[in-house]
C-alpha cells in the first residue's frame, strides 16, 4: 500500500500573529516542510513617497515617523540629513549630539523589540517580550521628555532638532544608562544560553556573505554573516566619526548570530550615548532654517544605519517647497530579498523564527 500526499498551500498572513504586520506569504507545505513560497506585499501601502511630493519639506518629517514605526528617530534622522545635504545647511554641534543620542536610544529600543518578538515567535509566552518592553518603555519615556511623543516622535528638524532637551532629561538618561547593562545581562542569562533557543536558532537560515551582499542586504543580517559593514563607520554622518565604538559581527549568518549581534549592538549603542552625554557642548540646537524650506535644485542621497539596516532617502528638488521626488531605500524591504533561499526546505516553525530574525516592519516594507 502506498500513501500519496499532496502539498497544501497555506496563506500565512496578512492576519497572522507572527508576520509582524500585514505581510502575506503564500506557502506550499509538504507536511511541515516548505516547498515553495511567494511573498505578497502591499497591504500597508500608504504611498509615502507620493505623499511626500505633496507636502513641504518640514511636513514630510511626520511621514517618516510612520515608515518604521519602531524606529522613528532614525527615520527622522535620515530624512533631515538628506534635506540638509540638499540645502547645504550646517547644523549646530549640540543639535548633532542630541540627534545621535536620540538615534542610539532608538536603536536600543528597536533591537529590544526585535529581540522580544523573535523570542515571542519562538513561542516563549511573552516573558522575554515583556522584559524587553519594560526597558523599551523607559526609552520611550525618555523620548516623551525629549519631544512629547513616544512612537511618532517628529523630533528632528531640518537644521537640528526641534528644541533642546529639558533639564529633567539628563538625570533620567544617566540613570537609564547606569541600569540598562544589567538588564541586558538579564536577557543574556534568560535567553542566550537557553538550549531550546540555541537548538531553534543555530544553523537556521545561514547565509553566506556573498549572497547577502549580492542581495544588498544590510544591517544586523549582514553583520551576522561576518562582514563588518556599518554605515556609521564606513560613511559616517552626524558626529559618528568622532565617537568610538565597535561593530559586532557574527560568523554564521544564522538566526542566532542575528540575535547575538543585536544584543551586542545594544551595548555599543549605550556606550555611544554615554560618550555623547559626557561630551555634549552647549549652544544652539537648530540652525536658522525657514519653516517653508526651499532647497536649491538638485538631488541628494544620504544613507544612515537604521536599526534594521541601511536607510536612505533620495530626494530630488526642483527648487520648490516640496520634494520633486522622494525615494526611500527601506532596509526591511530589501532584507526580505533572500526570503526564498532562507525558507525553502525549512519547517513551519522556522518560518516565523526566520521572519522574526529579519526583523521586518511592514510600515517600511510597504511604505
Amino acid at each position, binding site marked *: 500500500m502506498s500513501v500519496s500526499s499532496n502539498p497544501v498551500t497555506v496563506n500565512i498572513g496578512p492576519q497572522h500573529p507572527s508576520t509582524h504586520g500585514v505581510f502575506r506569504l503564500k506557502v506550499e507545505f509538504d507536511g511541515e516542510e516548505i516547498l515553495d513560497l511567494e511573498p505578497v506585499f502591499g497591504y500597508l501601502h500608504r504611498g509615502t513617497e507620493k505623499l511626500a511630493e505633496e507636502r513641504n519639506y518640514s511636513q514630510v518629517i511626520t511621514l517618516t515617523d510612520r515608515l518604521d514605526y519602531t524606529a522613528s528617530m532614525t527615520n527622522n534622522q535620515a530624512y533631515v540629513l538628506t534635506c540638509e545635504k540638499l540645502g547645504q545647511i550646517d547644523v549646530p554641534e549640540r543639535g548633532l549630539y542630541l540627534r545621535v543620542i536620540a538615534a542610539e536610544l532608538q536603536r536600543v529600543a528597536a533591537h529590544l523589540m526585535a529581540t522580544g518578538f523573535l523570542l515571542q515567535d*519562538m*513561542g516563549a509566552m*511573552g516573558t522575554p517580550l515583556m522584559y524587553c518592553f519594560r526597558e523599551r518603555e523607559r526609552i520611550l519615556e525618555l523620548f516623551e521628555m525629549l519631544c512629547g511623543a513616544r512612537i511618532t516622535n517628529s523630533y528632528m528638524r531640518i537644521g537640528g532638532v526641534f528644541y533642546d532637551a529639558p533639564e529633567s532629561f539628563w538625570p533620567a538618561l544617566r540613570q537609564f544608562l547606569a541600569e540598562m547593562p544589567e538588564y541586558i545581562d538579564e536577557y543574556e542569562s534568560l535567553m542566550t544560553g537557553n*538550549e531550546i533557543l540555541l537548538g531553534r536558532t543555530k544553523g537556521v537560515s545561514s547565509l553566506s556573505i556573498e549572497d547577502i551582499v549580492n542581495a544588498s542586504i544590510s544591517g544586523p543580517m549582514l553583520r551576522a554573516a561576518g562582514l563588518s*559593514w556599518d554605515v556609521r*563607520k564606513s560613511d559616517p554622518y552626524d558626529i559618528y566619526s568622532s565617537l568610538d565604538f565597535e561593530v559586532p559581527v557574527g560568523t554564521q549568518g544564522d538566526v542566532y548570530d542575528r540575535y547575538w549581534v543585536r544584543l551586542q549592538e545594544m551595548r555599543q549603542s549605550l556606550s555611544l550615548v554615554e560618550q555623547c552625554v559626557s561630551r555634549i557642548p552647549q549652544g544652539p540646537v537648530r540652525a536658522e532654517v525657514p519653516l517653508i524650506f526651499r532647497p536649491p535644485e538638485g538631488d541628494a542621497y544620504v544613507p544612515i544605519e537604521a536599526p534594521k539596516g541601511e536607510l536612505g532617502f533620495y530626494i530630488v528638488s526642483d527648487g520648490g517647497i516640496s520634494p520633486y521626488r522622494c525615494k526611500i531605500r527601506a532596509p526591511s524591504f530589501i532584507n526580505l530579498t533572500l526570503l526564498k533561499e532562507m525558507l525553502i526546505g525549512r*519547517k*513551519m*516553525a522556522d518560518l516565523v523564527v526566520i521572519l522574526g530574525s529579519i526583523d521586518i516592519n511592514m510600515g517600511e516594507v510597504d511604505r
Partner: protein
Amino acid sequence: MSPSVLENNALYQSIYSAINWVMPDFLDSIVGYAAAFAMVMLVANLVLVITPLFIWFERRILGRFQQRLGPNRWGPFGLLQPIADAIKLIIKEDIVPRGADRLVFNAAPVILFMPVMLMVAVIPFGTQFYLVDLNVAVLYIIAVGTLETIGIFMAGWASGNRYALMGAVRSVAMLVSYEVPLVMSLAAVLLWAGSMSLVEIVDKQPVPLILLQPLGFFVFIAATIAEMNRAPFDLIEAESEIVAGYHTEYSGMKFGVFQLAEFASVVVGAGFITAIFLKGAAGWSFLPSPAWFSLKWLAVIFCIIWIRATLPRVRVDQVMAFAWKFLLPLSAINLILVAVEMVIWPSPNGAQLWMIGLINFAVAAVAIAVLATALGHRNFAPRSPQIPTSTVVGEKVV
C-alpha cells in the same frame, strides 16, 4: 446497600450516612445510588470549580513572572475573571465556518472534554477520598487520556482550516511519540508498587517516589507536559506558528469548552503527578490529607506555569527527537534500573532506600548528561561575548 466497589470509600460513606439520615425509611433501597450520584456530582463539579480557579492562578502568576499585574478587576484579586470570561464567551456569536463538517465540528468540544472528566474518577484526593479505587487505574488513565487526541483531531479535521489541520496532525504525532516514554516511566512505578491502583501506588511509597525514581519523574513530567500541550511542547496550538492550532475556527462557548478542557487536563495531569510521584495525599497529621494533596498539587502546578513562563517552544522535529532519542532511552534505563533494584532488594528497609535513591540520582545525572551530550551534536556553547575588532570594508565589498 451500596455498590461493593465503594465499600471502603470514606467519601462515599460519609455522603451515604448523610443521605440516609435525611431520607425517609421507605426509600432505603435507593440511598446507595443517590449517594453515589451525589459523590460523582460533587467531584465532577469540584473539578469544574477548580479549573477556573487554576486559570485565574495561572494568569496571575504568569503576570507576575512577566512583571505584569495580571487580571485583577473582577472580584477580590480578580478571582471572578474566569466567570466574566465565560459570560463573554457565551454571549459571543457562535460561528461555524462554511467549509466545516458541522456535526463533527460541534461534537469535538464535548469529545475533548469527556476524557478529562473521566480521568478525575481515579485520582485519590485524600486518604480514602476518591471516586473509585480502580484496580487498573493506571491503564485506565492511559487509555482514557489518549481519547483526548480524538477530540483534537476531530476539531482540526472538521474545521476545514489548514492551520487547524496542521495542529491536529501535530497532536497525533505527539501522542504517538510521547505515549511510549510515558508508559515506560509508569511501568517502573508499577514495578515498584506491584499494583495498578493509584490508591495502592500512593500507599506503597515509603518516601515520595520522586526521591527514588528521579529519572522516571523527569521522563514522566516531560511527557505529561507534552501530552497536556503545555509550553515548551505546545506545538498543537503554537500561536506564533499556526495561529491557534486545532481550535482556530472555534468561537464562543465552544472555544470556551476547549480552553476549559485544556486547563482541566493540566489540573488532572498535575493530580496524577502528585499521586504517583509525590506520595499523593500523605503528609504529617496536623493538616487533613486533602490539604496535603492540594499543597503538593499547587507546587506541581506552579512548576508547570514556571516552565511555561520561561521556555521558548521546541520545533516540531525537535519535539519528536526529544521523545524518541532522549526520553525513550532514559525511560528504558530507568525501567531496567528499577527492575534490577527490585530483584536485589525486594522489600527495602531504610538504609537500602537510601542506597536506591543515591544510585538512582547518580544514574539519572550521568544518563541525562551523557545522552544530552551525545545528542547535542551542534555546538551548544553560547558564544563568549567578545567583539572582534572591526575591519571596515570601504568602497569595494567582498
